[in-house]
């Protein structure tokens, strides 16, 4: 019996025959040294790494809050005239 036509299976079967790209097995020059140095730096100062991470998140949150307030302010402009309390003998108070 003929199998029903399945375009995905047909396509993936063809894609599997595509020539594989050679993967280099050696790390770029200095890569291992760089990674180990970063690991050591984070190990030596975990508190700094912790604050660095949370400060960055805090800055992002502050920027988002600022953008929200700015958008809201643009949509709701301040009234042009400010009501003035009229006290006899003291004009314009």
């Amino acid at each position: 019996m003929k199998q029903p036509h399945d375009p995905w299976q047909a396509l993936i079967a063809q894609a599997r025959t595509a020539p594989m790209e050679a993967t280099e097995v050696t790390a770029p020059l200095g890569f291992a040294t760089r990674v180990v140095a970063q690991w050591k730096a984070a190990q030596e100062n975990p508190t700094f790494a912790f604050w660095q991470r949370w400060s960055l998140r805090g800055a992002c949150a502050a920027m988002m809050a600022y953008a929200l307030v700015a958008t809201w302010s643009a949509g709701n402009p301040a009234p042009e005239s400010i009501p003035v309390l009229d006290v006899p003998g003291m004009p314009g108070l």
Partner: protein
Amino acid sequence: MDNLVDLVKQGDDAAARQLVAALYGQVISIVRKHLPTQRHEEEDVAQDIFLKMFTRIQQYRGPQPFPHWVSRIAVNTCLDRLRAQKLRPVRTFTDLGMDPTVYHDTVSWSDAGDDTPASNSRLSSELVEQLLASLKPQEQIILRMLDLEQKSVSEISQLTGWGASKIKVTAMRSRRKLTSTLQKLEMETTP
């Protein structure tokens, strides 16, 4: 390898560098397979994976071999990167950036597995990448391993930590999605 791991756990820098050099090929191969559109960032991703490996190395107890443990970190890091990416839906040939006639002429649907010219298989491979990019990150990871790399469900389970039933159900759903997309595209090519 186990000896190197023990030395790294004791804080040996030279052993750590050797471990990175020994696992680089394996890690970069996973990154390239799962993040084909981020070739310019592959070194950054690999660095991220190795840093996670070092940070968590004290937690490694076995019994699975160390390279398998690292592969799981690599796959999960790729998954996180995919989550940060925007999905690229494929609805028309414009989304694929491909001419319908070229598509129809090059990708022959009838006999999968016949002597496909290299240009056709390369085009199919590009098409597969674009279609996979339209799926959710978890679906991309599962379908790539299952259908493209032809890994078994248990291998995928080991690499991702996901259960077999979850893998099977996700694969079934994503295949259904892609089949439907391809059928719609085929209808566009039919005069």
